[in-house]
Structure formats: structure tokens, C-alpha cells
């Protein structure tokens, strides 16, 4: 095997799937047969989905059937249901090498939080990456400068020279230049690792109203002119429902679809500053005329779906938080920005032994 590329992340929403997609395509372009392994912390959640997790579906399509798999490390003693039998660190390494023997490269996607993903305990991802002698691509979802810097520096130290690229993703656009100027020298000073900085872009972290209506599915009851409006998240909270939208506070299970956060005093509290970009009503009840009128007054779209509130919420979170084959535009935008910021033509330039 030529090598193992390990995608590590300091937290959820850091762009693991987008980076994995970019790496997989680059390897395929180089003619390197590649396998994809997802270290999943929740076997029920990952494997119970029809067709597997969204990442499994995506990478199967990219790399071919039989080239992807999910590994669930054992749970710690005392977890619900007791200790779940699973593979130890050494067994995972052996298993990966054996499974990947027909591939020239393995792409391993780690858990959401490399540092301390509790459900992955007692298998340490840091130990795993070291034992595999993997080339690590480290992703961070920006929350605050200090958090990003110290998390990344700590992980780089613990990985003992295995980091090949550090990517700080989702930096608020208005802070981008300042944060990049502050962080880049610090991150590169430690090991000379290339570092890239990607701003928060609505096209990467959102879906349009029309896409949400299609994927749930939901009916667009009011505000058809807003089908292209971008939705970044959803909330059950009532604080955002002000003015004519106060009416919706009484609607059981209604979801507030949020748009881009508006500038505010705190960067780390995005949902508090999010704007209402739409309302989604779950359940069998149809919207009443007052609701439609209120949505019109607030100039937002109103969607209705027959699913119950919890199922709809889970589906919506899944839709908003995962990358699918149809999201190629997101992959292209992310890749372009990343390569430009790294100053390379191909992401594999970060791993010279895989780069022809």
C-alpha cells in the first residue's frame, strides 16, 4: 500500500466529507486505487440508515462498490447495553491493512472530534493515526481564535510529525483576513505544515428552500418566490419569533429555518444571531390563513410536511449536516478555495510520496 490518508477533525461541521471527496477524486485522477474507511462512533446511527450512512453512499459512488466500510470501535464499560464487543487498536490496524491490501491508498475518515470523542473511547484516534503511520489532514471548524490555535497545536504535537495539512474552516467572512494573518504563522511555525483558511460561505453550509422542500419532502405553502433562499440551520427556539411571527410560538413542533447569521457581538454564538429565513410546520395539521398571512408579512416562506416533529427534525438535521453526490457545487467551491489558499494545483501535493 502506498499510504493511508487520515482525515482528523476537532469538531462537528468541519468539512470532513468535502475534504474526503477532494482527496478521493485526486487519488482517482492519479490512478491510485483507493478504499474509504469511516470510523463511526455510533453503529446504530451509521449503519441503521437505508443504504448506509450518507458518507458511505457518497464514497461508494466515488470509489466503487466494496471500496468503503465503516468500523465501530468498542464502547467503554458502563455504556448502555454494556461493553460492546469490537476491535482493539491493534486489531483495527491489522484489519485495515488486510482489508486495504487490494488498494494502493486508504482514506480514513475519523470521528467528529479527534481530541476527545467519548463514544470512540477506549480507542484513541491519535494512537491509531500514529500506529498506522498515516498522513493526517487536520480540519478545524473555527469557533474562536484561541480554541482553534491551541486545539490544532496540541493535536499536531501529539501526532508527532504526521500532519500534512491543517485546514481552518468556516471563519466568519468579516474576520477572515485578520484571523488568517494571526493564525497562519503560528500554525506553520511548529512543523512547517501547510495551512489553509476557508471562510464561512453560505453555499457550503446551507441548502435552498426548494432543496429542503424536495428532500424532506415538504410542501411550500407560502412564499414561492423564496425557493432560492438559503437555509443554514433550524431551531425549535421561540426567541427568533418576533413581530408577526409570534403567532408561530403557539404552533406545536414548528421549526424555525435560519439563514446566515447577521453580524453581532459574538462570533461563537451563531444561532443567537441567526435570522428567520422560513418556517416549517410538521404534522397532520394544515397551516391556517393567519399563519400564511403572518409568513407573508414577515416575507418568509412557509413549508408544511406530514411527518411528525421529531422525525422531521432528525431528517432535516441529516439533510443540512451531510454531503451527497448532488452537492458537487459545494465540493467544487470548497476545493477551489482550499487549493488557492494552499497555493497548489492538487491537494496531493501535500503528500509528496503520493504525488507523481
Amino acid at each position, binding site marked *: 500500500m502506498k499510504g493511508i490518508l487520515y482525515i482528523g477533525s476537532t469538531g462537528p461541521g468541519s468539512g470532513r466529507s468535502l475534504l474526503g471527496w477532494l482527496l478521493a477524486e485526486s487519488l482517482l485522477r492519479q490512478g491510485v486505487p483507493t478504499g474509504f474507511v469511516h470510523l463511526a462512533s455510533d453503529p446504530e446511527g451509521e449503519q441503521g440508515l437505508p443504504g448506509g450512512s450518507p458518507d458511505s453512499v457518497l464514497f461508494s459512488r466515488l470509489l466503487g462498490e466494496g471500496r468503503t466500510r465503516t468500523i465501530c470501535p468498542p464502547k467503554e464499560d458502563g455504556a448502555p447495553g454494556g461493553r460492546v464487543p469490537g476491535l482493539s487498536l491493534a486489531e483495527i490496524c491489522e484489519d485495515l491493512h488486510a482489508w486495504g491490501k487490494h488498494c494502493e491508498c486508504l482514506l480514513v475518515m475519523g470521528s467528529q472530534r479527534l481530541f476527545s470523542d467519548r463514544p470512540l473511547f477506549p480507542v484513541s484516534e491519535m494512537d491509531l493515526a500514529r500506529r498506522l503511520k498515516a498522513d493526517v489532514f487536520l480540519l478545524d471548524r473555527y469557533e474562536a481564535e484561541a480554541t482553534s490555535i491551541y486545539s490544532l497545536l496540541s493535536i499536531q504535537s501529539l501526532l508527532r510529525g504526521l500532519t500534512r495539512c491543517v485546514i481552518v474552516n468556516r471563519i466568519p467572512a468579516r474576520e477572515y483576513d485578520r484571523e488568517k494573518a494571526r493564525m497562519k504563522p503560528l500554525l506553520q511555525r511548529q512543523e512547517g505544515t501547510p495551512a489553509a483558511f476557508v471562510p464561512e460561505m453560505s453555499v457550503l453550509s446551507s441548502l435552498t428552500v426548494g432543496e429542503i422542500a424536495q428532500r424532506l419532502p415538504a410542501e411550500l405553502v407560502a412564499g414561492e418566490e423564496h425557493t432560492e433562499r438559503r437555509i443554514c440551520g433550524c431551531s425549535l*427556539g*421561540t426567541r427568533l419569533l418576533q413581530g408577526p411571527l409570534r403567532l408561530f410560538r*403557539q404552533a406545536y413542533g414548528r421549526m424555525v429555518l435560519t439563514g446566515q447569521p447577521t453580524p453581532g457581538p459574538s462570533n461563537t454564538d451563531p444561532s443567537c444571531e441567526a435570522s428567520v429565513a422560513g418556517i416549517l410546520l410538521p404534522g397532520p*395539521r394544515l397551516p*391556517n390563513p393567519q*399563519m400564511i398571512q403572518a409568513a407573508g408579512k414577515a416575507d418568509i416562506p412557509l413549508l408544511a410536511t406530514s411527518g411528525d416533529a*421529531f422525525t422531521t427534525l432528525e431528517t432535516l438535521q441529516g439533510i443540512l449536516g451531510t454531503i451527497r453526490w448532488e452537492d458537487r457545487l459545494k465540493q467544487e467551491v470548497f476545493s477551489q478555495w482550499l487549493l488557492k489558499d494552499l497555493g497548489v494545483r492538487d491537494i496531493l501535493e501535500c503528500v509528496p510520496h503520493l504525488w507523481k
Partner: protein
Amino acid sequence: MAWIRAINQLSSQEKQGLYRLLIAPELFGRFKINPLTFRGPEGAKRVRFYCPPYDPIALIEVRQDPSAREPLYSMQISDRPDAKTLEWDFLLVNDPDSPRFDIDVDEQGRDTLFGRANRNLPEERKAMEAGLFPGQVRSGLRLTRSTVGCIEHFAKTLSIQTVFLDALFYHNAIAYERLGFCYFEGFRRMKRIQEAFQEGGALYRRLDGSTPFREPGFQETIRGRSWAIHDGILDGLEDEFLADGWVSPRMYLMTGRHGSECTFPHART
């Protein structure tokens, strides 16, 4: 960082452990739900939690049957701007064995927002005659006191000093004041309602039997008053405090220091 957002960033196990405090304990025994696994005797999940890491809210829902039309217990809490206060967004309790009244939808199946946006009068009348309060689709399980105890315990555990809520209906406000909540906004309106329901008062005179929800004698009970107010008995009243009709009072509970405000002395249910 405020509490709910902080809790929501813990593992599922940890946050569900904390939010379990918000489930009235009677429910576990009565509906044979394992409080550790949240599953019923047949193994199906009966309790669901919605508490994602980036949302400052927690919704807890208990169902007798996963396919039931409505939960038997549903509670939502959310953060306020500071860590010392908490917002109690709503509580729904339904006795699944009691008859259902479709007061939540009109004849076309459209949401009535529990009768506050539009009304299904035939169903509301049947609900009232069956002893329900406005906004109820089924009888409750007499869990309000227990639930307030749960939320107070949860708040004390986290050193939260004050719990805020909006009392949607008149009977909710009376129930909460009896359980130690005070009025942050709306106390004078509630006092004025009490005065106007006294013999000869403006509201007393309007209990003229003109609708099934305005029968004479309704002034004597919490339920009667609540139905009359829900029916719009305050509308068009020339009164300094009641001119805007019914406005949900804003209430708060100081943990460990209950208030004793009373806007309906000697009330009967």
C-alpha cells in the same frame, strides 16, 4: 455560555441523563417505561430528546406508542441570555386513555393553534362539557405540580435562579400562581379580571348565556372563566387593563423561594 447550549454539547448519554430530570417520575411507573433505557416493555423507545449541540433548546417527548397522534408528555425549555435564568417554552400532557376532541383543527383540518387562531366550536363545546380546559385535546394526567417540581429541581441542580414562562390561557396562569410562580407582566390584568367577574362587574354581566361558553355561574370556577375568556368575553371591554383582550401573562418562578400571589381567591376548578 448558558446552560442548555452547554449541556447540548455533551454526549447523548450525558445530556439525556440530565434531561431525564425534566420527566415527571410518575410517567415511568404508570406507562411502564424503563427510566434508564427509556424503552417500554416491548423494547420500543418511548422517550425522545431533541437537543442538538448548536441549539439552545431541549425538547423532551414521551409517547405511549411511537405511532400515537400526540405525545403523552412533551416539554421544551430553552436558554435565555444569561446562565441564571431559563425559559420554559411549553408543557403538553395528554391522557392517552381519555377521549380526544379535535379542538386543534378546524373542519378543513387547518391548525387552530389550540383555538387561539381560529376555533372548532362544536369540538370545543364537547371538550368543555367533558370537563376539559381550553387548549386541551385530551384530559391531562394531573402532573403540573410534579412537573414544576421537576423543572425546579433541574434548575437548582444547575444553580439557575429563575424560570420564566408565558401562561397561554387564564387557567394556566392560575395553576402556576398556585405553584409559586409570580407575575413578571400581567398581574394587574389578572387582578382586574378577578374584579370584573365579581357580582355586578363587567365580565359578570357578560356571562349571559349568549354562547355555550358564557353561561351564568362560570365566574365561580377556573374552568368556567377560562372558557369565557377563550370565547372572547374580554373583547371590546372599555377597561384600562383589559382593552387589549386576553394577553398571556409573563410569569417567573424563583427556585426555592416561591411566591404567594393570588388573583382568584377561593377558586374552584
